[in-house]
């Protein structure tokens, strides 16, 4: 079976009422994944045995009526570690790596009875926005298999959009949950920095990385965040702030909600069809009672340059651990330790990862530090101040998620600068640690266009409320990909 026409609450009710056993659900899910993934290549590893064992256990003890996620399958981006299950970050460097522990998010979902069914393809170490930098395979867009799925959480987005799983975990360092969600017409939430523990997430840019949730509907997304959010003693940067019920107060009325629209997010590079779709979306928000006003975030255009310096510098530092000694790939023919490091890293990392390591190493090297790293960190402060000014007067910011719709494989491959500009509308939220969520707002030639709802730090509830009202007004989630079934 697929999950295109159902939601978590409905599935939960069926399991509790015993209209369906967990084993039947998981079996049918695995069967559909094994068949449909010949078209999509979303999965790197299918966790058949683990999932069926968990299902059997759940059937034996009964599905708890107070755990909406219990007995329901989900997918996991392959940079989130899973005990004894291959975790590759889509890199040759980790092609044989089986972690000895579970990430906190995996533990929390297991506590809720959720059942992981597989590990999902992504750009290598989450570096990319098309999932093409994966060492293993190219995932295809759920709406048009000749188009890229977006990235880096491309496998997670396609698995949800094509109905293989009802929700999936991703990670978002500069847009890696929101942009593939937009390209596949689903909901993708990157919560505030610190909202979800990063323990067990293979680090890319540690001051930017955040686990995110991809789902078909806003309410399903909120159910999952309810389970994942909260402080974790294993992650010093996880926030002790109280976690509200994110599914509370979802309504179709936005009376009194003040929405800001930054003029810079409709600038050069944003296509006409994206602009028109978002403008129509803003009219819908007005019809629901919201006020919409234009504002300015003047440092937006510097975001991409500053982000690539800072995130690459953090990546260069984080990826030093991959040296062929303790785990992962080791080059065969090294004569001494130095050569072992160099050969292992040169053979184990792909081209995009090397490019980011090079950029980051350069930015941190003597003579470049002030002009690159420090300058970028100062611009990060100015971007945060831009947001603070807007959020003093408004509840939310609404903008496009990506400047374009999904494009063909290999386009822009020779020019990383163009690919990096794809992230111009999502990077600022990672710079400032803000929650951002993409919701489908319409189509252009059959390809989805995402609208991004952005809140102040730890204001995920407001983001969900506006996203829910918009989704209920448009019901676009009822449209599902029909092509490659």
């Amino acid at each position: 079976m697929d999950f295109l026409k159902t939601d978590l609450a409905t599935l939960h009710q069926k399991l509790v009422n015993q209209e369906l056993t967990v084993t039947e659900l998981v079996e049918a899910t695995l069967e559909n994944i094994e068949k449909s993934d010949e078209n999509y290549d979303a999965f790197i590893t299918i966790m058949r045995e683990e999932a069926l064992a968990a299902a059997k256990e759940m059937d034996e003890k009964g599905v708890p009526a107070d755990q909406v996620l219990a007995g329901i399958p989900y997918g996991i981006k392959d940079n989130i570690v899973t005990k004894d299950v291959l975790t590759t970050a889509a890199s040759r460097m980790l092609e044989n790596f089986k972690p000895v522990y579970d990430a906190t998010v995996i533990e929390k979902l297991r506590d809720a009875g959720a059942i992981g069914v597989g590990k999902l393809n992504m750009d290598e170490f989450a570096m990319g926005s098309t999932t093409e930098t994966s060492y293993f395979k190219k995932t295809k867009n759920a709406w048009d298999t000749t188009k890229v799925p977006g990235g880096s959480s491309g496998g997670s987005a396609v698995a949800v959009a094509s109905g293989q799983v009802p929700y999936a975990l991703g990670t978002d360092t500069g847009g890696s949950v929101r942009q593939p969600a937009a390209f596949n017409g689903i909901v993708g939430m990157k919560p505030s920095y610190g909202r979800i523990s990063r323990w067990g997430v293979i680090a890319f840019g540690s001051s930017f990385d955040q686990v995110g949730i991809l789902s078909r509907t806003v309410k399903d997304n909120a159910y999952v965040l309810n389970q994942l959010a909260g402080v974790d003693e294993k992650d010093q940067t996880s926030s002790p702030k109280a976690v509200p019920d994110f599914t509370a107060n979802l309504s179709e009325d936005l009376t009194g909600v003040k929405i800001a629209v930054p003029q810079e997010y409709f600038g050069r590079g944003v296509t006409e069809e994206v602009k028109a779709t978002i403008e129509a979306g803003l009219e819908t928000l007005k019809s629901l009672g919201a006020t919409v006003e234009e504002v300015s975030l003047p440092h937006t255009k510097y975001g991409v340059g500053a982000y690539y310096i800072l995130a690459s510098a953090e990546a260069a530092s984080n990826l030093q651990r991959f040296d062929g000694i303790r785990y992962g790939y080791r080059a065969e023919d090294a004569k001494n330790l130095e050569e072992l490091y160099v050969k292992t890293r040169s053979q184990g990392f792909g081209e995009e990862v090397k490019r980011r390591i090079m950029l980051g190493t350069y930015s941190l090297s003597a003579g470049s530090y002030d002009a690159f790293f420090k300058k970028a960190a100062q611009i990060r402060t100015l971007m945060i101040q831009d947001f603070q000014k807007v959020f003093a007067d408004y509840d939310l910011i609404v903008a496009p998620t990506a400047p374009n719709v999904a494009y063909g494989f290999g386009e822009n491959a020779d020019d990383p600068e163009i690919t990096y500009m794809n992230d111009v509308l999502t990077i600022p939220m990672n710079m400032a640690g803000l929650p951002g969520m993409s919701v489908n707002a319409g189509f252009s030639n059959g390809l989805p266009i995402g609208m991004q709802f952005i809140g102040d730090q730890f204001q995920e509830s407001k983001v969900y409320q506006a996203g829910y009202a918009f989704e209920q007004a448009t019901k676009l989630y009822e449209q599902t990909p029909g092509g490659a079934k």
Partner: protein
Amino acid sequence: MAIEKLNRDAVENVASLAKLELSDAEADMMTDQLDKIFDLVKMLGEVDTEGVEPTYTPVQTQTVLRDDVAVNAHESDALLANAPESEANLIKVPTILDEGA
């Protein structure tokens, strides 16, 4: 500091700092591509950042202390199973110094 055009020597120096080995073709491509990325970076010079505090993390959190109690989180067997080569409960690596060095 002005950002100069990137040259091959600088790229090779950075590769050695990053413990990467680039083929001639890779080094040429990397020089060209990093130089294009630097165009994005050069824009940052337009912004007056005099006196602006840099931000290194977006959310301020308090440092939390815990009791200093040793825990045995992982079994060494499981950890060693991931090592490319091990012997006698130790990870094995090649010669640290060149022969005769």
